[in-house]
């Protein structure tokens, strides 16, 4: 007790006290409130919500609060919808490994069933975008004229709305103060759709009135079509534009040519 008393004037004491207070309040709230939330989510299976709640308390409550009402360390999850959970947890961004300017993509820590349960729990807190069904996350395959047209339209939508952060080829780009738009290669259609619908991190929300589900599908199809195109020009150098090309010219082209010049200079006349 003496040790604790000695630290009572520590600068962090007030913060710890506040946090403790918040946790207690949140904890108390979580004892009283969830039942109402459960009741207001008639579509979600009651046991999935309950399982999700357990998972939530064990893995997410530290930052998001026991009732998902949000704390200083994490935003409120009321009304973010199942799509946000499915995106954040399904790409391994959540649970966050450590405080950072932005949650990086990471190893996925839960299986599909657990993710669905978490999503069901969060969806039960308030209405929000739900996990998209297969109708709009199915990739339109190039081949027919109609499909090609849809893909090309997706390309136009992508260039106007997405390329300024994610780069022309979806290779990613920098944002302010260490934040960034991640690369889009290899991201599943469902997760791309969810990202557009929920606007994770610094990304704006492209809801159904900004971009219709069909338009989102076209964007996804364009990205996948571009991914599946053979790299006709050879190595892409990361599709990062002239910077990587210039670096390559200075390091490799000049290096090889100077090597040849030295060799030729050494050759007897």
């Amino acid at each position: 007790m003496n040790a604790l008393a000695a630290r009572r004037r520590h600068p962090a004491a007030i913060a710890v006290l506040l946090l403790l207070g918040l946790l207690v309040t949140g904890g108390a709230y979580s004892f009283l409130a969830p039942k109402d939330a459960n009741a207001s989510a008639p579509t979600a299976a009651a046991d999935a919500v309950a399982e999700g709640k357990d998972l939530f308390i064990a893995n997410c409550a530290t930052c998001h609060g026991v009732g998902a009402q949000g704390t200083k360390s994490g935003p409120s999850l009321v009304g973010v919808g199942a799509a946000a959970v499915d995106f954040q947890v399904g790409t391994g961004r959540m649970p966050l490994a450590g405080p950072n300017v932005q949650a990086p993509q990471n190893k996925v820590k839960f299986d599909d069933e657990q993710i669905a349960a978490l999503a069901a729990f969060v969806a039960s807190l308030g209405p929000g975008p739900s996990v998209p069904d297969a109708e709009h996350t199915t990739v339109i395959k190039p081949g027919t004229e109609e499909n090609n047209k849809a893909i090309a339209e997706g390309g136009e939508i992508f260039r106007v709305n997405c390329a300024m952060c994610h780069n022309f080829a979806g290779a990613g780009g920098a944002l302010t103060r260490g934040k960034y738009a991640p690369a889009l290669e290899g991201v599943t259609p469902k997760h791309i759709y969810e990202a557009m619908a929920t606007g994770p991190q610094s990304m704006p929300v492209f809801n159904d009135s900004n971009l219709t589900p069909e338009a989102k599908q076209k964007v996804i199809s364009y990205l996948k079509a571009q991914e599946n195109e053979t790299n006709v020009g050879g190595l892409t150098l990361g599709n990062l534009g002239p910077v990587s090309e210039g670096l390559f010219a200075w390091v490799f082209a000049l290096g090889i040519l100077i090597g040849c010049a030295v060799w030729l200079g050494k050759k007897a006349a």
Partner: protein
Amino acid sequence: MSTVNETRPADALRAGDRQADERASASKPLGGVAGWLDDRLGAAKGVSFLAKKVFPDHWSFMLGEIAMYSMIVCLLTGAFLTFWFIPSASPVVYDGSYVPLQGVTMSDAYRSTLGISFDIRGGLLIRQIHHWAALVFIVAVFVHMARVFFTGAFRKPREINWVFGTILSMLACIEGFAGYSLPDDLLSGTGIRAMNGFVQSVPVIGSYMSYFIFGGAFPGEAIIPRLYSAHVLLIPAILVGLFTAHILLVFLHKHTQFPGPGRTNNNVVGYPLMPVYIAKAGGFFFIVFGVIALISAVVTINPIWAYGPYDPSPITAGSQPDWYMGFADGALRLLPGFLEFETFGFTWSMNIFPGSILLLPIMWGIIGAYPFLEAWVTGDKREHHLLDRPRNNATRTAIGVAGITMYVVLFFAAGNDLMAIKLHLSINDITQSLRVLFFIGPPIAFWITKRICLSLQRADRQKVLHGRETGTIWRYADGRFEEIHAPLTPEERWVLVQHESLEPLQLTAAKDANGVDSPVARKERIRAKFSNFYFRDRVAPPTPTELEAAHHAHEAHAEPAAPHEAIEPAGVGQERETIKADRQRD
């Protein structure tokens, strides 16, 4: 009376008329095709002069050749591209074989570039060769320029050629920028958009200039045909013309050479053009072409199909110019926004104007003027055909490195977003650091380079006076240790002692004996200050007297070993001496 001249028979009357013909036919040792050609062109004398022209051998003299050959590659592949490229901004609907763009409305320029890339046999390879060759061309130009600068090859009589080279390097960058802007893909259109902004940032007349260049409001339909004319006609013509003058002057001045035994300011030690350099340089052309073709075959450059057509509304992350314009882009990224202000009803875009418009003439102006500045400071009016070793002119080398540092800071600033994302840093921090580095980097680089040069000079001096350190430690019988120093050969030594070490200018008295102000004193004072800046720290190369003295000292130093040797059994000592001699030989 006879009309016949007795002394000159009729058939001999016109004998003299044919003298020239006879002389010509008698003096023709050339037969076959060469003779036939010489009869018609009279080129034998010139060709023989060229064939006997001697060039010195050094790999760094080939950097300019890389530039020349990659320029030729650009000209060849560029001609191919003009067969299919349509420099037009008129809108068309794409129906070529690249699926993700089918049905998209785009300019004819972009459609034809897509056609070259996907539907013309070998088109993509040629396009990539053209673009890679352009990058390599300008890389080689800059490296060649650095070689000429650091070896002092720009000194009299080559100042004019340095100025030609400076203009060539600037034109090469502009030519590259014009070409980068032609395909009308999203990136090149963004480049033109940026250029429009640069032009508009010119105080007062900017917006008029923009309307003049674009033939109306941005983007309009005029800019692509205009850039095309500049890219394929105007700039290449000037480039090739100036380049020819550049090469002719090399022949006129003769090539510079690195110092060495037998090499003076009045000779060139090397091999004749024919057959040695015809083979070497001719072969090197194919090497350069081959390397560029290989790179173009395996590495994508400017994937215009992925960028999509230009449209003023979209933009892509990672929009950068090609590397040679990177320094200007970097300057823009570093310039703080608060520099823009308004007075007298005009906007003064000092956040853009200095980095985009002003920087180019300033940079190339300083580069072009440097030889004249240095000549003024040294007051040197002599011709120089022997190159400086960079360390022997420490201040010049340091100035060069400081300038390169400044350039590189700007250059890296152009990639600040990619550094941020790849190194997981904050773009704001990178920009702030580079802003600071732009000012403190060059002085630090100057100081470090100068110190390194001076210490290298000292090391050279040590080497001349005491020989090369062999790394062999010798223990004497009396317990003493000594490192064996191998003496230099006279050839090795000559390279280290041949240079002249300039001393700072002595100030002439400001007043003469009668107390009258000297008219030249003020100008001289400034010059003396510069001279002091250049040559204040100097390490004089060893003089023959010093060398002699050092040799004597070494011999005297070696003597005390002799008495100890007598104590040892004769055989052992002898054996040791042989080892020592062997090691010294290595």
